[in-house]
């Protein structure tokens, strides 16, 4: 460390707490680290690890109920932890700037892009309007936005997520700050966009010599992009050091656990090939779905998609946002009639079912959604949530119902005591288990999982994936698994369809699609997955896995 010069950022013994009602909870316990000029330091951890609170404290943007309890934050040698709000304003944006998490909500919807980039120039010193406008266009061009003269007049909703993040990066680099705090800058973006944005941050950092404090939950991203890594758990640093060294020989058990739970493209045991003798459970034939747009035009969301899922196997539908994944599964679940083509389940054409038989059909096909926070009624107990599907079909006795609910809760690995709890008292993983129990209580044949593990931390994600595999073996379930995450798909699926703009660009057994993708798009998707520098991947490829 002493070989470096003066650090840009030096945090010592940082404590941050939040108030909730009358009580205060400390979420960051004595965190110390430093960032050298031009260095990328990754703050890695799962939700609740205190990584975001640490970053917010550094830029003085803790939420209203958050408080910096003690510790020092030295920026270029000066302790800013006790500075007044007014004094902090002078350094925000100029010395330390922010690339936020969610580009979709991070630009003011009623101001033009140009006005929002110009704002940071105007806030720090007098600048002629014409000079400012010229500088804004330069900045937008610099972050790789095409047609910057047009962009300055556009509003945020007219740009894609990746373009918005470029605008936010232009704002962050406008005054050439010494330190940029990137708070999960790509977690809301598609994987190919993510790669381009991360490359951009890398390029600009090298060009300007800016240091980056990179907050992420994604060990793959941290491995590929950071010089040093800090692993946080429960508000305490588990370990820190050179990224390559930490990942090659992690000292703490927690880091080892995190590393082993990251889904990887290279898997120890490929799933056995699906026997040709298995009967098909789901057949999708030439599915086409159009939506009407105002002005009499139509938008083709799904364009000629066909696949067959054998009973007891998992078919993954992979694609980025707008690829038609969700529309395809809505047709399978009978939520909308296809424009043309068929979805056959047990030889019934789902699209031709009338409301009565459609209801009976729903017993066979159940859905698990992405967001375990939004899909459970906050006012119902777990028992009521899991019991509800049973009440919608032919009546069975109270005792029988109770027995079924208890059995299914046990099957998804939850303690019986959880039945009387409300969703808010459960963790994310527990909620997703409840959602799975609710889907399984009707003893369906087919379960459609819509990004069912995407919102979960990696360690929880690994547990839920293991549970899904166990349930499939025990109950002979057929899964249709929608995901944007190719690494997860590699772990769980037997066959896969890759969708791009509604078209099926690749289709077949997972091994075949991953090892010899037929489309350029699939190759790009696979190449964009972060984590190439994760040591496990190299260990596996040389065949030395223990």
């Amino acid at each position: 460390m002493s070989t470096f010069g003066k650090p840009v950022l030096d945090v010592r013994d940082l404590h941050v707490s939040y108030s909730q009602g009358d009580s205060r909870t400390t979420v960051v316990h004595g965190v110390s680290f430093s960032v050298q000029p031009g260095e990328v330091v990754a703050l890695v951890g799962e939700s609740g690890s205190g990584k975001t609170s640490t970053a917010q404290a550094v830029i003085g943007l803790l939420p209203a109920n958050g408080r910096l309890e003690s510790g020092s934050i030295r920026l270029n040698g000066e302790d800013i932890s006790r500075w007044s709000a007014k004094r902090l304003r002078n350094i925000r944006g100029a010395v330390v700037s922010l690339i936020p998490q969610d580009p979709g909500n991070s630009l003011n919807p009623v101001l033009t892009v140009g006005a929002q980039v110009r704002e940071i120039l105007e806030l720090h010193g007098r600048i002629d309007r014409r000079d400012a406008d010229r500088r804004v266009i330069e900045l937008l061009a610099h972050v790789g936005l095409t047609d910057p003269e047009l962009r300055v007049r556009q509003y945020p909703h007219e740009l894609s997520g990746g373009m918005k993040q470029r605008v936010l990066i232009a704002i962050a680099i406008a005054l050439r700050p010494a330190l940029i705090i990137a708070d999960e800058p790509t977690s809301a973006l598609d994987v190919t966009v993510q790669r381009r944005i991360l490359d951009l941050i890398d390029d600009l950092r090298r060009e300007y010599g800016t240091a980056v404090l990179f907050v992420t939950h994604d060990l793959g991203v941290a491995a590929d992009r950071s010089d040093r890594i800090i692993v946080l758990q429960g508000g305490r640093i588990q370990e820190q050091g050179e990224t390559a060294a930490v990942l090659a020989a992690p000292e703490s058990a927690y880091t080892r656990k995190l590393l082993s739970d990251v889904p990887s493209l290279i898997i120890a045991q490929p799933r056995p090939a699906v026997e040709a003798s298995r009967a098909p459970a789901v057949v999708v034939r030439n599915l086409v779905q159009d939506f009407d747009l105002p002005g009499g035009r139509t938008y083709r969301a799904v364009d000629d998609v066909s696949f067959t899922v054998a009973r007891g196997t998992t078919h993954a539908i992979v694609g980025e946002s707008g690829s038609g994944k969700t529309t395809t599964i809505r047709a399978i679940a009978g939520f909308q009639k296809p424009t043309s083509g068929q979805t056959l389940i047990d030889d019934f054409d789902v699209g031709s079912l009338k409301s009565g038989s459609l209801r009976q059909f729903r017993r066979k096909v159940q859905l698990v959604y992405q967001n375990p926070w939004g899909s459970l009624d906050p006012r119902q107990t777990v028992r009521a949530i899991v019991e509800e599907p049973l009440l919608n079909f032919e009546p069975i006795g109270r005792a029988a119902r109770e027995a079924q609910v208890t059995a299914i809760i046990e099957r998804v690995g939850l303690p019986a005591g959880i039945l009387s709890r409300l969703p808010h008292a459960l963790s994310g993983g527990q909620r997703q288990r409840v959602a799975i129990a609710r889907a399984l209580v009707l003893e369906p044949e087919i379960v459609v999982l819509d990004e069912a593990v995407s919102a979960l931390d990696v360690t929880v994600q690994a547990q839920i994936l293991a549970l899904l595999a166990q349930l499939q073996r025990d109950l002979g379930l057929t899964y249709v698994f929608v995901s944007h995450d190719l690494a997860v798909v590699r772990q769980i699926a037997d066959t896969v369809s890759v969708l791009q703009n509604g078209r099926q660009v690749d289709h077949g057994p997972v091994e075949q699609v991953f090892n010899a993708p037929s489309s350029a798009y699939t190759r790009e998707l696979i190449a964009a997955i972060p984590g190439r520098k994760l040591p496990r991947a190299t260990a596996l490829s040389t065949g030395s896995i223990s």
Partner: protein
Amino acid sequence: MTRYVAGRIGQAVLVLWAAFTLSFIILQAMPGDAVLIKFLNPEFGLSADQIREIRQAYAIDSGVLVQYAHTFANFLQGDFGYSMQAGVPVSVQLATNLPPTLRLAALGFGAAVVLAVFIAFLSSIAPFAWLRNLVQSLPSLFISVPVFWLAIMLIQIFSFRLKLVSVINPGPWESLILPVATLSVPIAAPLAQILIRNIDEIRTRPFVGVARAKGAGELHLLWRHVARNALLPTLTIAGVLFGELLAGAVVTETVFGLNGIGGLTEKAVSNQDLSVLQAVVVISAAAFVTINLAVDLAYPFLDPRLRTRNGA
């Protein structure tokens, strides 16, 4: 865009027609007969034959549908019929009574908006927590104050005690000060409440955090980033509150003894002067519909997201 505007105007016309028809049905169904109330009065000393002639002249005994068509056609041409009680065309009565009410309503509404914005901003940037809490509790207090009581208290304090505003032969603008104040309070309260809630909500949005990270101060944030976003949903409520304004104007005019639609309505109700009532209902509905149409059409100018969606 033109399709959107045409659609909204069409809806507005439909609402107006429905208001006319409903009020016609209700007023027709009312027991009693304005002609009998007025002309059976022995002061006139009319014979039964003469009353029959008057009834024919007003087409009172013809079928309801004929009367409906007759009145509807007249309204379309701006002819609101004759006031039974005053014996003058309703349009003449409206011409004298509408302008003062409009002036009162417009000033009252303007004052309410200023008051609401002031309360909402103060509750967000006032320096001390106790002061912010105090300011935030003002709207609830305002809502619970009855309009007539507030009017009387204002007269008591400002005219009789402090002698700041004269109530006896005041000037044309002086006479408006207290009524406008009275009228603005119950309108400002819900506006301020919604504005405060919106400001609190908008302040938690990520884009406000981004602006703060640029180095923006609290006032700059409030003015440039929060205010416009917070005002958008408030605008809809402001349109709806216009109905409140008309109701408030009736009470206010009565308490302060002002000429206006309020007084006219009150007299028409007690005399069952159907033509006047029908005209007041339709005029109020027209005002209400126009304000809300204006609000709807103003949205695309204030919120760029609506511009492209409707322009498609």
